[in-house]
């Protein structure tokens, strides 16, 4: 029983991490038809920003308490800024050429991890975190690490915030309409390009937050963390239906749980295999993913 609880919580924590990356990825793809290969790089930037700040380089920030919150905020802000910069400088000039937008993000996705390992070395760095988040708590007889709960909490907050933003605000309406039919939104005289930058900012913010909290989950940061998470985020996006935030949420929970349980009960690595096989099978049965294409 305790193993079951621990596996479930770990799977949910991993799923939360996937969701933080995949939600932005899904919105960007739904709205712009751009598969953002640089999204893993945004996560890495968030992780390194937080690590840099929490290691005492930013005044006021530190590994514990309010200092750590400041460090996470700093990392998230840097990641968001990087995402906006990416959209304005790299993606926007290629507005009419979606395939070349994808290629440009591939280039950025190669360059950023290389730059990070150039500055801070290619080895993993220990991630500093508050004492309170390093411990465990008892749940149904299992000792569950607290950081799983932090990740799940953050993912739920991001999900609710995204739902509220998409459902209740005017900008959210434009984004939803753009996902449905971009040409029609443009024809109605709405500058959809503002929504592009907005969606990139939101996606970058969520991914960077994922990076900052992923540092807690993995206990370390390294330049290629984001890239290796990105493939599973792709799996989540496609499984959930491209452009759908709710779909991404459901899919990330499913993928995270399947991966953890298969890895534990069969052999290490087989869970990763199961997930990609799951994706292939699903796409052949339902090419549009679990939920179809709805924001």
């Amino acid at each position, binding site marked *: 029983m305790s193993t079951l609880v621990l596996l479930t919580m770990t799977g949910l924590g991993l799923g939360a991490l996937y969701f933080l990356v995949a939600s932005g990825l899904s919105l960007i*793809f739904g709205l712009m*038809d751009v*598969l953002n*290969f640089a999204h893993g790089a945004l996560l890495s930037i968030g992780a390194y920003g937080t690590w840099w700040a929490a290691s005492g380089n930013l005044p006021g920030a530190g590994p514990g308490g309010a200092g750590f919150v400041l460090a996470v905020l700093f990392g998230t802000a840097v990641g968001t800024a990087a995402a906006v910069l990416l959209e304005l400088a*790299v993606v926007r*000039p*290629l507005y009419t*050429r979606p*395939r*070349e937008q994808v*290629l*440009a993000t*591939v*280039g*950025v*996705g*190669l*360059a*950023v*991890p*290389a*730059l990070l*390992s*150039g*500055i801070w070395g290619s080895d993993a760095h220990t991630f500093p975190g508050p004492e309170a988040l390093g411990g465990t708590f008892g749940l149904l007889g299992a000792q569950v690490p607290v950081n799983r709960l932090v990740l799940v909490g953050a993912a739920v907050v991001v999900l609710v915030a995204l739902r509220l933003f998409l459902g209740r605000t005017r900008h959210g309406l434009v984004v939803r309409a753009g996902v449905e039919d971009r040409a029609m939104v443009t024809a109605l005289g709405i500058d959809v390009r503002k929504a592009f930058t907005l969606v990139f900012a939101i996606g970058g913010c969520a991914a960077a937050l994922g990076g900052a909290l992923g540092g807690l989950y993995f206990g370390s940061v390294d330049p290629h963390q984001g*890239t290796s998470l990105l*493939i599973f985020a*792709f*799996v989540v996006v*496609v499984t959930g239906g*491209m452009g759908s935030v709710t779909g991404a949420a459901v899919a990330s929970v499913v993928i995270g749980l399947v991966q953890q349980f298969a890895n534990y009960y069969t*052999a*290490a*690595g*087989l869970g*990763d*295999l199961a997930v*990609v*096989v799951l*994706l*292939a099978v699903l*796409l*052949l049965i339902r*090419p549009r993913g679990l939920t179809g294409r709805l924001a």
Partner: protein
Amino acid sequence: MSTATDTPDRTDKRPAKAPARAGRTRPLRWWPAVVLLVLVVAPFSAVPVPGVLDGPLGSAGSLQLLATCLLFGALATGYDLLLGRTGLLSFGHALYFAAGSYATNLFLLEAGLPFALATVLGLLFGIALALALGSVSLRVTGIGFSMVTLAFAQAGSILVSRNPGGITGGEEGRAAPSDLLPSSLVGIDNTANLYWIALAYLVLTLGVVHWAVRSPTGRVWEGIKENERRVEVLGLKPYGFKLTAFVVAGGLAALGGIVHLLLTGGSTPQTTTSDFTLSLLVMVVLGGSGTRWGPMVGGILYTWADHRLGDLAGSGAVADLPAVLRVPLSQPLFLLGVLFVAVVHLLPGGLARLPSRLRAASNRKETGEQ
């Protein structure tokens, strides 16, 4: 009346112009043969190529680098059969390359088959894998196809790094046994033979791609790339044509994997990763997707730059620079990534378009001056 006066003028001009044009283009048309001849005799030469190669042209180190460049030039050309000719964005091309390499290696090591048989079986395994997985992945279109190919390749990558039964060697890969290979392909003295094999593979790939693209099937590929729906309306089923392209490209990649096995003396798990496919993508786009020579040029340049930039990073000239310049310059992937973004932005169509763009620019200048 006016036509009568015009016609003699034209016929007068034509004979005067035609020989001049033929004289100009005929030697130019044969440049690939000249380049090929130079490449074939390169191992016999000891000409130093300062800046491009470390040692003289015929030395083992230079030949090894050149052979790797030629191999990747060929691989990029084969990959472009999907990307540039049929419009299929596959993220799983590495799988078929690795399949050729690992299958041949395992037929040698585990089954103890003779070299020639192992090579043929390795190639057939790669083709069969491409046929099986291609027939499944092509059932979805667009980005879904890209994702399924990525998923299959990732599954292959995980399988190789998990090392089932100890046969793939996990993270370390598996060295090809030198006692099981023909003696003329082993050792530093025989690098020239490997170089010629890589060159032959490049020629074969260029030939197959060129021939396939000009065949009736190639015309349909072009149609699929431009507008798949219209091909369907014309009464052709794109599925079979796309599968043909996928299997041909997969077979060429598997053959490339075998050449890579010989060239590097083993199979490494790096060749199974999605990064490997992405680097092929970068090569193709860098050189010019959908052109005859572009992918080859891109592959050769990328491989060469990857090697040379690594040397540059270790050199004293870079170590003495201030940190702002030293850090980016010491990362070949950073430079290649930035270069790639620059090419996508500033040079649509890749390097292959550069001459025609320069010509157009100079033409504009001339007419502007007039």
